[in-house]
């Protein structure tokens, strides 16, 4: 059944491509965001040394978006800003691989007008569904024994001695954002979009979850943040 899914979607794509008379009013964008959060739970943590913060993992947000123009001067869409960090933690028992992601998922309503044939001004309000995740490789005590018991039953004898496992702690929060932007169209399909605005997140560090258990996470100041973004848009409309 799985092997039929890909040909099915391929056929669907080809058929829809063959019979459609015009494109849906869809545009997609790729770009970068810039903001300045205070991640004191990581940067000022004296018990565990986290990887050093830099522009890439603190201030830059990787951004992609897709919009549908439902009215002559308005679009609805999905806009995702992601911050990543990867490194090693110097823990007492091991040097664990650590990953941290913060994703701001936005569902914007954007209105716009063309000031000049090539220049558009746009206005965006959006709710935010934020999600933070921290992944750490750990080495639970009985892990290799359990695996060895299983593998021994297949005929091998104690092949593994040191195994790790990855768990993640997660936090979800809501927020909202407002932005004003300017878009310059290079052609009738391609545009450069710059936005400035703010976002406000109701993040609480006591609300993290690890294996369904509520735990305390890092302190982060991500409310009332100015936000800038730069995107390249391609319109299919």
């Amino acid at each position, binding site marked *: 059944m799985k092997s039929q899914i890909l040909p099915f979607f391929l056929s669907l794509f*080809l058929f829809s491509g*063959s019979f*459609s*008379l015009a494109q849906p009013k869809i545009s997609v964008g790729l770009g970068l965001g810039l903001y300045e959060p205070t991640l004191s739970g990581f940067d000022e943590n004296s018990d565990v040394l986290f990887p050093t913060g830099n522009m890439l993992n603190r201030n830059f947000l990787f951004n992609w978006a897709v919009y549908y123009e439902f009215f002559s001067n*308005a679009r609805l869409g999905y806009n995702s800003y992601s911050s990543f960090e990867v490194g090693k933690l110097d823990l007492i028992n091991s040097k664990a691989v650590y990953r941290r992601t913060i994703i701001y998922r936005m569902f914007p*309503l954007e*209105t716009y007008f*063309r000031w000049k044939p090539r220049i558009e001004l746009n206005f965006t*309000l959006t709710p935010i569904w934020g999600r933070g995740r921290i992944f750490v490789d750990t080495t639970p005590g009985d892990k290799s024994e359990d695996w060895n018991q299983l593998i021994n039953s297949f005929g091998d004898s104690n092949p593994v001695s040191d195994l790790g496992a990855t768990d993640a702690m997660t936090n979800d929060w809501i927020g909202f954002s407002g932005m004003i932007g300017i878009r310059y169209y290079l052609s009738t399909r391609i545009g450069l979009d710059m936005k400035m605005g703010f976002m406000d997140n109701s993040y609480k560090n006591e609300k993290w979850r690890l294996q369904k258990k509520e735990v305390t996470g890092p302190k982060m100041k991500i409310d009332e943040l100015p936000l800038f973004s730069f995107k390249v848009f391609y319109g299919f409309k």
Partner: protein
Amino acid sequence: MRQFTSTVLFFVFLFGQESMVDRPNPCEDPLLNLAEKKGIKAIPIKDIPRFRKLMKACEDKGGYKVIEKIVHKDWQRDYKKAKIMASFTPTFSVIVFLVMIYYFIGLGLATN
């Protein structure tokens, strides 16, 4: 399923091979007519490469003004459609603008 996919692909490529050779004037191609009447963005994605080739072929045959007219009309169509806000959109834009002003004034006062 493989045979079905192969058949579909065969027909797609077969129709995709529609040659421009038997059309003496690329500027009169239905695709260029569609772009002129309904706009460049009305062209299906699968026909975009062929449309680009047609534009170039038309320009090479001296139809520079035809292409220029298509592009100009497309810009004007987009501009006319979006230059005046309608319905709820101006109200929404004013609200966004006021929220922004309120936020940045608040930020300025809090910083001081």
